[in-house]
């Protein structure tokens, strides 16, 4: 279990009323648009402990595989209505900072927050308390005809350990 959250956070996970927040950040190769939270239309994170045994015979064995899909459909810059997600990630948008570049393997983090202070749901809005729920990289994305962009991300650790396995020479039989 992820520890370090407040008692108020725990209380909200056991109640029926939550005020939730998302923070979705990408490190793109160019441009100032690293926090795309306001453009998020949909986020789905899926985690499972993977095993090569049939599901019914599963011990907790194998590796935790995690993936995240999300859709951006709003503005990536709320001060300029031309700065849509489709503009930023569209491969043929010559004014986009990503023109001639792409977002593949861009680091992505997703935080889920709950508003736990007394100002939540008031005009002061409060401050969300975040928990990191995903750290990964963009594996693919689709710029849709309605201007939205759908991303598929895989977890960072799997991506990070793609080098040829090296074992202690002293123990290895060549």
């Amino acid at each position, binding site marked *: 279990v992820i520890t370090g959250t407040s008692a108020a956070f725990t209380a909200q996970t056991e109640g029926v009323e939550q005020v939730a927040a998302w923070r979705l950040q990408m490190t793109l190769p160019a441009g100032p648009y690293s926090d795309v939270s306001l453009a998020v239309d949909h986020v789905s994170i899926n985690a499972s402990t993977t095993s090569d045994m049939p*599901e019914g015979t599963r011990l907790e064995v194998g590796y935790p595989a995690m993936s995240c899909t999300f859709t951006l459909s709003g503005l990536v810059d709320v001060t300029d209505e031309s700065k849509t997600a489709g503009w930023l990630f569209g491969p043929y948008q010559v004014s986009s900072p990503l023109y001639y570049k792409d977002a593949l393997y861009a680091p992505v983090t997703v935080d889920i927050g709950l508003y736990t202070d007394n100002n939540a749901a008031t005009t002061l809005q409060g401050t969300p308390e975040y928990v990191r729920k995903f750290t990964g990289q963009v594996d693919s994305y689709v710029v849709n005809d309605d201007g939205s962009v759908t991303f598929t991300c895989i977890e960072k650790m799997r991506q990070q350990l793609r080098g040829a*396995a090296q074992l*202690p020479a002293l*123990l290895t039989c060549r």
Partner: protein
Amino acid sequence: VPVSAEYLIDYMLRADTAGAVSSWPTRLLDSLLAVGFRTATLPETGLLLQDYSPTYAPGVFGSALAGGALQGFVRAAQNGPNFGQFTAVEYTLAAPYVLANSGSNSPNMVVEFWTNGDVSTVFPSVVIATAPPLTPDYASSWYKLTVKSTGLEVSSSLPGFTTQVWTTAISSGAHHVSWVMSSNSALGTFAVAVELDGVSHTFATVSAAHGTLAQNYVAVGWSTASPVSTIEALQVTANTGGAPVNFFGATTSYPFAPQAVLNPSLNANLNVIGAVEGDTYSVIQQLVQAELAVAGGDESAVFRFYNRDTISSAQPVRTITSAASLKAIGGAEVAAAGVVNHCTVDWNGWSAAAAATNIYKATDPIRVPRGKTVILKPTLDAPARLYGNVPNGTVGVIADGSLATPAFGARFSTTKAGTATFNANSITRTVVQTASNQLQLTFTNNGSTDCWLVSSSDYLDVPAGTPVLQIAGYTWTADTATVDYQYPPNAASSRFGDQAHQISGDQWIQDLDTATLLAQDIVVDQCTPRPNLTGLSIVPDPRLQTVDVVHIQDPDVTGLDEYARIFGWTLNWDAGSFEMTVDARTLAAPGGWIMGVAGRSEIGSTAYVYPST
């Protein structure tokens, strides 16, 4: 040797990420020695001299060195540090460090490690020495850092050095300790500082500059036997950073946030590793599969390795009840296909020969031209480990009549025919084991004539000109057997019949105990069907992770009141909706009975009470 899966996972992680993903810090700049002690003494930098059956215990970030034993003789020279008698591990630095330097800003020699446990009566220490243990000079040219509950102590055998003590209380538990020495012959100064958990202390007066001693050896151990503390993540470096202010500007690894959290492995007897296929991640999964553990990245991209004891003994992290947080149960699935009441596990181990033999013998005359270096890389007929269980050594001269005695040895002649004996002092010769079945022999001829590795006419036991180069060691023999476990003892008599599961051909299972426990645990876990609770819709709890155990209660509709381990979760957020579903496997069959608590599984218990079949 042998090593555990924990060590191998740590090794592979560090190799693939340059130390970024690891349970101990990445190597410091100008590293001379780096060893994590994750159930092995093999260093990442530096060379292992001896380790004397070390033992391990949980340290700060993973398994750590917890002691060793000598083999019945006094290790330290007379008047040397008593330390040596209980030394667990000894190393040679990757390169000699010359403590004194003629410049005005000499490199600092930095030593750091973490210790965990009680340091009130048995004290962890690190010794830096000019000469190797067991040599006369060892007694007169060492520096030592000792960690005591009353403070940090730096002592030395060098003339004019007064033992320095920084009196500061050191509690039981985890501490980072570092030590820096800087000697400057130009200024005539020798300075020492120590650091505890990031707080440094510089000793005001130490001594005049010491001579240009080349520091080559490191020994790690405790002040007496049976330590109750651990040592891990030891590093020694010629740290070139900074001016001699504020811990001399030296860089240490403190503070450290591990990017890999590793449990001790339940598979700890791996001796020889055959060819592997795949990238680091997939080979790690092979190791994980071999002991039914879990390894991978968590939500924050921290690598986690949980053994099955940790998984099975996990306490519930919360209760999910229909009164407050359980919204729906998708299904409770039970399948006969999930029953395993009979398990066979093949183990593919290696047995080392009890007696040393010559594992390599040159068959042809080898010439080492004058002024040249010759490197031989022979492949052995079978995997082996070197004589004395050391990874490297020096090739000596074999005396007349001693060819049958296993040793690292050769004979040197001036001609191929063995006309006269070549002066062995003129040729440097080392042997290093580079793989379980491969050696590297290096000969450098500093003499004025060519050298041949053949017996000369001065020897009478073999004809002159006979090739003589032999390396001793203990050969490994492949050892294979099968463990067969079933419950009930005649599984075929159960209502499910004989439901067999077979694990074979797994090179990572190398000993009987590992295979037996594995077979037992599989059968105990799976001899009765346990429901999978799928599609549990709950009030979103972002804190929950896979492998967490939760207590699920639905007294009104399904009657569910059970502990279950999460094997999957999904979080969905759309404008206006925020949902979480969880898949979990119950820990006991419905109505299971154990330890006198009806309806409860083995939460918090390591004892098995077999369920009804």
